[in-house]
């Protein structure tokens, strides 16, 4: 954890980590006997499901809950479905998790199902949404959102993580290949890539425009990339996709290239694991592998009240179980010892102004939090720029009163969204 320096006349600078110059091969985690897959769709007991416990599945088979379902997942192993259950996330959103019992021995790796692919984005969206790196094919294939720029992120968005950088160094040719495929599929002319300014990429490509991003957090967050490199100001409450810009991780581009070559899906996700002492490990695990298998491989011991953070230290989320599966978009896992977990408090804002100095979006956090504490979400959005927040978490990082500001803001946005949805429903 980066602490406050003794002299802090200026705001603190949090720097992104740079991948080590000659990175080692990631440690391969054997395919476990039980894998957990997450489906975005909640279980609806009134409908006849397409899959049930006891069904056998093949490696590469597409699994959907219902006939009309658009969400799907792809089984990474051949085996049987041993459980279907509801998964609840931070905000109470429900999704479904499937547990698949691996029927093969761990050593043999059968070939994955091959697909009949056409050269358009809809066909890619049909099978490749859950590739490692989670390519945003749903958005790219959608007719309602018009994307005109694709940005490949080789610079990791959150601190500590070096997964994307590692992939960029190791698979630069695959990225170029994947970029070519993306261009062909989507017919989107503008393809850009973000690279940390201190990282030397193995080569250039005339297909892709390179954006050298600053090493200082939060310059790799979508809103900042839009601002610094595309001279585009993200309007409050809009997403980059609304502005026609879609972000795709370097890993997604690589796995797309491989998938098109083999005409089948890949399942090996590369992760950066950060141990309690800050040691970095790199692992290659099959999507669906429970995290404790990875911890065992690196002999990381988890005690009571430790914290497992998925994603980076600023924007990630904490999981409540070691069984949390590896997911397509999971780049970083951080294990924090209980002794270093910073506490939060319910002290009111003292108006010290540190959040105002550090906020990259000029949000008046000190006033905003007073409204959010009082559940005044609409006022907070109208007058105090709730929706301008780019969700970097820096305000809560520096807060002297240790107020969980980022949580208040996320909750505020979520409640505001619900309020607005309710209003539109009432109007109709």
């Amino acid at each position, binding site marked *: 954890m980066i602490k406050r320096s003794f002299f802090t006349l200026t705001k603190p600078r949090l720097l992104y980590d740079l991948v080590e110059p000659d990175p080692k091969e990631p440690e391969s985690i054997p395919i476990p006997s039980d894998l957990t897959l997450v489906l975005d769709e909640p279980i609806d007991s009134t409908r006849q499901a397409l899959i049930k416990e006891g069904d056998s599945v093949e490696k590469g088979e597409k699994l959907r809950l219902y006939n009309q379902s658009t969400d799907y997942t792809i089984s990474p192993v051949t085996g049987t479905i041993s459980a279907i259950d509801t998964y609840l996330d931070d905000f109470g959103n429900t999704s479904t998790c499937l547990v698949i019992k691996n029927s093969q021995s761990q050593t043999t790796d059968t070939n994955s199902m091959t697909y009949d692919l056409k050269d358009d984005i809809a066909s890619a969206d049909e099978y490749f949404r859950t590739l490692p790196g989670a390519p945003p094919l749903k958005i790219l294939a959608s007719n309602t959102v018009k994307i005109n720029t694709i940005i490949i992120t080789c610079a990791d968005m959150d601190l500590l993580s070096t997964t994307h950088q590692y992939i960029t160094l190791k698979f630069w040719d695959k990225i170029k290949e994947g970029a070519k495929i993306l261009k062909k599929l989507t017919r989107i002319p503008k393809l850009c890539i973000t690279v940390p300014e201190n990282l030397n990429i193995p080569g250039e490509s005339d297909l892709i425009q390179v954006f050298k991003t600053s090493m200082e957090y939060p310059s790799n967050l979508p809103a900042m990339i839009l601002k610094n490199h595309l001279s585009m*100001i993200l309007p409050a409450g809009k997403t980059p996709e609304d502005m026609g810009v879609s972000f795709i991780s370097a890993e997604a581009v690589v796995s797309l290239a491989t998938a098109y070559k083999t005409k089948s899906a890949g399942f090996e996700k590369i992760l950066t694991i950060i141990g309690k002492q800050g040691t970095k490990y790199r692992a290659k695990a099959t999507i669906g592998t429970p995290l404790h298998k990875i911890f065992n491989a690196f002999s990381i011991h988890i005690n009571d009240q430790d914290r497992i953070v998925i994603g980076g230290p600023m924007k990630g989320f904490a999981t409540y179980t070691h069984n949390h599966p590896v997911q397509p978009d999971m780049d970083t896992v951080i294990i924090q010892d209980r002794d270093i977990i910073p506490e939060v408090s319910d002290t009111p804002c003292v108006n010290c102004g540190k959040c105002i100095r550090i906020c990259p979006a000029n949000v008046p956090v000190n006033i905003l939090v007073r409204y959010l504490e009082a559940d005044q979400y609409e006022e907070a959005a109208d007058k105090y720029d709730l929706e301008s927040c780019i969700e970097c978490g820096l305000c809560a990082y520096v807060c002297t009163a240790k107020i969980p500001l980022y949580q208040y803001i996320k909750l505020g946005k979520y409640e505001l969204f619900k309020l607005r949805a309710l209003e539109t429903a009432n109007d109709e």
Partner: protein
Amino acid sequence: MTNNKLTVSHAPFWHDGDSLFKMNLNIMIATLPAVIFGIIQFGAPAVGVIALSLSSAMLWELILNVVSKQKISIGDLDAAVIGLVFGMMLPATSPWWLVITGTLVAVVIGKMIFGGIGANPFNPVLIGMAFLMLSWKIFFNFDAAYVNYEFNFTALAPLAALKSQGVSAVADLFPISDLIMGKQVGAIGSTFGLGLIVGGIYLILRGYIRWEIPVSFIVGIIVTALAFSMANPDTYAGPAIHLFSGYTLIGAFFLATENSSSPVNRLPMLIYGFCAAAMIILMRNIGAYADGTILAILLLNLVNPLIDKIRPKALGKGANNA
């Protein structure tokens, strides 16, 4: 497989390690040069006043916590800072009841009834001081307060002398070096200019006070006093005596910078500091008070919410993206 109970909480999972306790502790450390000098200068009574002020402020907050059935909040040292700064602004000869009445008003009326830390619209210290000054003006006559002391320098409160005797009379009485080195009569913690400046710079470097406020405050004092003095050098004194006497420096570094009652955006901070200083000079030169620091800063506390509305446009708001 193990089944530990994990800690689950929300991002960010890092914190810079700062806390209210550390912030207030640093403010207290920053006051030490001035306080220690005051104790050396004014002797044991000064220790008594500072100790009583600090402890009674904490005690009032504790009593209020218990009475209002709130969480005990004195651990964040906010009350201690109020008590300490309050004590620094009193003459060493203040009677005990004056001190505890003052801290009662400061902590209870100045801070707790507004909702405690962070909720006070005015600097609690100034609320208490204003109350005492309006009620028992006699105790703030520094010339009378130290009548039994033997000093090896001019035993006259500079600002009061300036008010009553005029510029020409005091011109040679208070050399700047004496004022800076604390060779003047005043409140316990307000006489040692150098100590206050060192403490203030320490706080600025540590990031516990916002540099814009003290800097613009001092600039405001210099500019306004200079303007007066240039217009009429016979009637109005130059900036030096204004800057290094009375409550000016304690005001610049410890009073105007109180978090809750001061602005946080850059331009408002500059306006706030400058205007507070300009008000002080106006009060000293034209008004009835010898030292207007307390009322001037209180006045600017009042307009703080209004000027703090001047702020940069948030990302993605406003006309340029319509």
